[in-house]
């Protein structure tokens, strides 16, 4: 069967079609048809081979033409890598061909012929096993590229094409010299046999190998000798760039991979170094690009640099090398093609011009898929590839720690520019959207590429060890919900709630005994149900909301279910994607969503690095237990993991994303993001701290730092909250403060500390849930989050007021509600663990919380009712239902704090067997003090009720009055808004301690950004746009590399 698809047909089909095309050059429809047929044929061949290899039935096919031995004939080999690569190249070739149909038909049969030859050349470069063949096909590809460029007939393209041709000619010379040397010394050019004979040939052979390697490296456009290649991307049509980037690069890369063994891997460090430099430098340069195609060009080159690193470290990566390279290559080829296709549709080449995509949401989705795939988010192949790469780099006998760190740093920069661009497209305010040329015919190519990418993702995930397929079930569910996105919101809501509930029912028996897991599962999943419940308020479609919300919850669930660190990381990244898309739904959320995503990625890379060290210590085992007792640089590993999780708890220093991101989110999303999502960070911290323990010497310092981070988060978060004008931002800052308590409690590594942390995790979920729903609901109802535009709403929204009142009493820790128990344990902890200085700041922070709490409830609900709010009704019933459910839980826990704290305490006794709280009923006793929740409640409620009754018995003539019946110095207030004290509420406080809330941290991050941008600006000056300079770069590059490398041959 496979024999029918002899690889030689690539050349046959290509040449035959090209020949036919010249015959039918005046029948444009027919000729285009022939071209498509030929391209399809090529794809069919490669697919057939790929399918047989994937099915395990394939055999490696060797082909020699015309009975001659190479180099006089063509020698092809079709193995698994060739099958995969030709499949990619042919696919992109076909898609580009379809995409370019209009242009190709217009330019005529000759262009079509050149196009076919181009695709054929690329395929042949992959297939051939002969050096001279390789050279020939390389030339064919170069010339065909330039040919098409000329045929596209733009002025710049002629200029660029000329530079390109000269440059590639120059490189060909280097290659040809190398081949000549090789043939002279070894008498053969067959790659498979060449290697031994060349090594035996001594110095001449070495020079040959170096020159050949160098030539292919140059073809891959290494930094800085790549000016000639970059210009190509700006002047070629996007679809052609897609082919060059995806196809040409893959082919050349594989050619290099074939050549390297020839030199017995003597140049792998060169390749790795070139790759590393190219990767980092390209990403930095891309940061400052404003031209979308140029940016894509740099990004492509950067990706190739990363692939070169993979190639250079073949030895360290061992048999996983091919998996990593394939994962990266597939993702790169497909997602870059998608981006290039879209770039053709967008008329404005600047990054901001991509806002045009909003005219066609499907393109936005494709853009998102491509961007997330390029950065290596799950479920795309690059996620697994990057995971393996980092793990193996750090995990070998000699860990390449710096290199892996650089790879992650480069990826982070890539994420910066890609997502900045993406957020422009999503959210940048535009007076009138730029034009978009997107006929349906042009959608075929990118959509197909995306589908193939999805298929590849699924397939790759099956190849990974330590990753359970069950994690794909939620993803499938999400896809299902995404498919029915056109239905009204309520129906999707019902489906989503049903899905989550089913999941809970399925999960519960599995985690029933494990209280720690139960707590977080409860927060994540019960929280999910509650937020989705509040989602019923939405009338309309709410396009895109449900898939993303479910993605987040799937990620959170994966964290709980994870058995390996890979699964944990998968969940973590999935959650990041989902939450990012939820957070950017707000109106002004663009910059904040971006900073959220970047901090998320930074944090997750930090976690990834820590995980890789853990796995290295455990000898490559990636079970969750490998986090315990890390043997490779444990202090660094744990610190990095903690740092990564701290970005999600938004602790001070890495908190700057939170106020904006949460402050601009819609009500129920705010609830998800703050009451639920932040707990993921807490869960991560708990996981790491449990693994780390506090025995080792270094842990003392880590915990000390962590404790102070928590304490300062609490203090500065609370102070800043008091200065906010927007109620939602106020709550966001308050979350920073509250999470500070949790972090501090965890850092104490003691029974009571963890009791506080876990207790807070639960209660924070409860009262913050109420606050977010209430405040968010009000902001939604009246269309602004600013408190000075509210006021007097108690008259209009008594139910919300009551819920908020209970919530803030709980938050502030005033007895008799449940918040007090946390304060009580805090005092016990401070004294019993001697955490006097941290503890003192924590206590002060708790008192400062009164400032913002009163401000919020007063300026929103009390004071003067504004005219435009006179008729506003209660917030949606769908917000009130979850609010009151949470409220009931708070009241129950207030009466019986032991129902929450006692089981947690019992569970913690397993971890920290030291002294604990002794419970008798609702009375808790420690070695220091005691409190009785129920008794306090009885006494206070009793006094209150008695006093109220007594007061009512006084029976006065009571007159209910309205808002202006106030003493106003004998005058009448003129307008409600002038008598409502709200703006700059704590002016005096700001005057006294405002310096503490100065955005020092923000300044630090601004400076970091500035420096990176300055570096980027400096580096990119080498690209003058002058062809001669570019050629000079190449020559200089060759000379320098030759001198450096040949130093070893003397």
């Amino acid at each position, binding site marked *: 069967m496979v024999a029918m698809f002899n690889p030689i047909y690539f050349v046959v089909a290509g040449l035959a079609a090209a020949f036919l095309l010249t015959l039918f050059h005046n029948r444009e429809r027919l000729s285009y048809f022939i071209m498509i047929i030929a391209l399809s044929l090529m794809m069919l061949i490669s697919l057939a081979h790929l399918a047989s290899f994937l099915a395990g039935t394939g055999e490696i096919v060797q082909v020699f033409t015309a009975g001659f031995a190479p180099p006089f004939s063509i020698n092809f080999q079709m193995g698994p890598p060739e099958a995969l690569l030709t499949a990619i190249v042919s696919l992109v070739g076909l898609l580009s061909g379809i995409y370019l149909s209009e242009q190709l038909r217009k330019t005529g049969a000759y262009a079509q012929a050149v196009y076919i030859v181009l695709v054929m050349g690329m395929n042949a470069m992959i297939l051939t096993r002969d050096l001279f063949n390789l050279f020939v096909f390389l030339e064919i590809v170069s010339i065909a590229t330039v040919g098409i460029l000329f045929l596209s007939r733009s002025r710049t393209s002629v200029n660029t094409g000329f530079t390109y041709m000269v440059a590639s000619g120059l490189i060909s010379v280097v290659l040809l010299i190398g081949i000549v040397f090789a043939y002279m010394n070894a008498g053969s050019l067959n790659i498979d046999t060449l290697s031994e004979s060349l090594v035996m040939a001594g110095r001449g052979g070495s020079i040959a190998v170096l020159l050949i390697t160098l030539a292919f490296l140059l073809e891959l456009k290494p930094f800085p000798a790549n000016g000639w290649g970059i210009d190509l991307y700006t002047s070629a049509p996007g679809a052609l760039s897609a082919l060059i980037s995806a196809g040409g690069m893959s082919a050349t890369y594989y050619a290099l991979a074939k050549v390297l063994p020839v030199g017995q891997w003597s140049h792998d460090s060169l390749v790795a170094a070139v790759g590393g430099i190219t990767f980092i430098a390209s990403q930095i340069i891309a940061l400052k690009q404003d031209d979308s195609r140029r940016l894509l060009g740099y990004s492509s080159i950067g990706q190739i640099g990363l692939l070169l690193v993979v190639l250079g470290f073949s030895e360290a990566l061992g048999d996983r090398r091919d998996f990593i390279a394939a994962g990266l290559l597939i993702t790169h080829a497909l997602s870059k093609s998608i981006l290039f296709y879209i770039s053709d549709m967008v008329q404005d080449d600047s990054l901001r011009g991509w806002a045009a995509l909003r005219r066609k949401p499907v393109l936005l989705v494709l853009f998102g898929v491509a961007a997330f795939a390029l950065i290596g988010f799950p479920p795309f192949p690059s996620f697994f590839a990057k995971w393996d790469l980092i793990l193996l780099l750090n995990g070998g006998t000699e860990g390449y720690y710096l290199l892996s760190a650089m790879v992650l740093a480069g990826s982070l920069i890539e994420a910066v520019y890609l997502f900045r661009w993406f957020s422009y497209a999503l959210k940048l305010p535009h007076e009138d959207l730029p034009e978009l040329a997107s006929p349906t015919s042009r959608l075929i190519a990118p959509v197909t590429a995306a589908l193939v990418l999805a298929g590849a993702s699924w397939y790759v995930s099956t190849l990974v060890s330590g990753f359970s397929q069950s994690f794909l079930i939620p993803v499938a569910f999400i896809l299902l919900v995404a498919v029915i996105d056109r239905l009204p919101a309520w129906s999707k809501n019902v489906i989503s709630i049903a899905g989550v509930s089913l999941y809970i029912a399925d999960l519960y028996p599995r985690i029933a005994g494990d209280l720690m897991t139960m707590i977080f599962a409860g927060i994540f999943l019960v929280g999910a149900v509650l937020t989705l419940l509040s989602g019923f308020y939405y009338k309309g479609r709410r396009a895109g909301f449900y898939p993303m919300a479910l993605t987040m919850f799937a990620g959170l669930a994966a964290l709980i279910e994870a058995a390996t660190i890979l699964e944990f990381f998968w969940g973590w990244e999935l959650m990041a994607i989902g939450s990012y898309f939820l957070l950017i739904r707000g109106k002004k959320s663009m910059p904040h969503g971006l900073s959220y995503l970047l901090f998320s990625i930074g944090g997750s890379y930090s976690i990834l690095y820590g995980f890789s060290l853990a796995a290295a210590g455990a000898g490559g085992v990636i079970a969750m237990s490998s986090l315990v007792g890390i043997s490779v640089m444990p202090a660094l590993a744990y610190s990095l993991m903690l740092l990564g999780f701290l970005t999600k708890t938004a602790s001070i220093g890495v908190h700057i994303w939170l106020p904006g991101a949460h402050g601009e989110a819609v009500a129920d999303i705010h609830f998800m993001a703050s009451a639920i999502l932040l707990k993921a960070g807490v869960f991560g911290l708990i996981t790491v701290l449990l693994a780390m323990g506090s025995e080792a010497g270094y842990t003392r310092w880590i915990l000390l730092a962590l404790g102070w981070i928590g304490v300062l988060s609490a203090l500065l978060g609370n102070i800043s909250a008091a200065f906010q004008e927007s109620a939602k931002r106020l709550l966001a800052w308050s979350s920073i403060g509250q999470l500070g308590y949790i972090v501090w409690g965890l850092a104490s590594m003691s029974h009571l500390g963890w009791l506080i942390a876990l207790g807070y995790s639960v209660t924070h979920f409860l009262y913050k849930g109420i606050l977010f729903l209430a405040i968010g609901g009000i902001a939604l109802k009246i269309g602004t989050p600013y408190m000075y535009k509210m006021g007097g709403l108690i008259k209009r929204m008594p139910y919300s007021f009551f819920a908020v009142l209970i919530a803030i009493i709980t938050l502030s820790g005033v007895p008799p509600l449940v918040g007090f128990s946390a304060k009580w344990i805090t005092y016990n902890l401070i004294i019993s663990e001697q955490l006097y200085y941290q503890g003192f700041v924590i206590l002060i922070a708790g008192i400062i919380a009164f400032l913002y709490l009163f401000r919020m409830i007063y300026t929103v609900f009390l004071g003067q009712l504004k005219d435009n709010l*006179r008729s506003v009704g209660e917030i949606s019933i769908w917000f009130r239902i979850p609010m009151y459910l949470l409220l009931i839980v708070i009241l129950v826990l207030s009466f019986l704090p032991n129902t929450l704290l006692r089981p947690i305490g019992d569970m913690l006794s397993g971890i920290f067997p030291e002294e604990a709280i002794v419970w008798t009923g609702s009375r808790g006793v420690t070695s220091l003090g005691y409190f009785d929740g129920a008794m306090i409640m009885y006494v206070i409620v009793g006094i209150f009720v008695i006093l109220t009754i007594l007061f009512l018995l006084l029976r006065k003539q009571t007159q209910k009055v309205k808002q202006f019946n106030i003493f106003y110095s004998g005058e009448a207030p003129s307008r409600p808004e002038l008598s409502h004290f709200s703006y700059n509420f704590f002016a005096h406080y700001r005057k006294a301690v405002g310096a503490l809330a100065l955005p020092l941290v923000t300044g630090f991050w601004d400076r970091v950004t500035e420096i990176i941008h300055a570096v980027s600006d400096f580096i990119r000056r080498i690209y003058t746009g002058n062809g001669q300079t570019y050629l000079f770069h190449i020559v200089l590059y060759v000379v320098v590399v030759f001198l450096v490398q040949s130093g070893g041959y003397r």
Partner: protein
Amino acid sequence: MRSNDDFLSKKIVPGVEGDEIEVDPIRDYYCDAVPQVSREYKRAYPSIIDRFKNWARSESIWILAYGSGCGAIEMRPLMTPKYDAYQYGIQWRPTPRQANLLMVSGYLSLKTLRIVIRAYEQMPSPKYVMGLGSCTINGGMYYDSYNTINRLDYYLPVDVYVAGCMPRPESLLDGLELLKKLIREGKGHGADIYAEKFEWYKANQKKILKSWNMPDYSW
């Protein structure tokens, strides 16, 4: 002529939900209930508890610290060591909500009259009014002014007048003692009289405050 007090005329305000809200400030911002006579006033004879209450009221007189005319200067010595009205249970409060005695210290122009009426009505009952000086009695030297009232008792129920131009602090103390006596005797019912003859007082007030731009009773 057009009035400046446009903020009290009806207006249409766009609501946050796209609706239009008609705001009638007098109706929507203010309570328009009419004051009621107290139960104590209706009783024929004061009960023993009422007597005790009246004693307490008389021994704890809180004055609204508000000066309408030149007489305000004569109130200050009462707080100084020389006269020290505190020893007689007299104190000053900054808000009418917590005051029992309104001292109208001198002439009242139309503008101050309006403020005095508001302040008086905002005081909790029982409440007392003391008029100081000729101006409050018969207009004094402003008897022929076109915008100064002549007789305070046509506008507010005055309990005690203290004559003089201006009366000296000693006279004020004397007036206060008289007031205390009246309260003890159960005659301090100014607020009830005001409620009883509400229409008459309002008519008088509205006669001169022609652009009446406040609710009939400022609670």
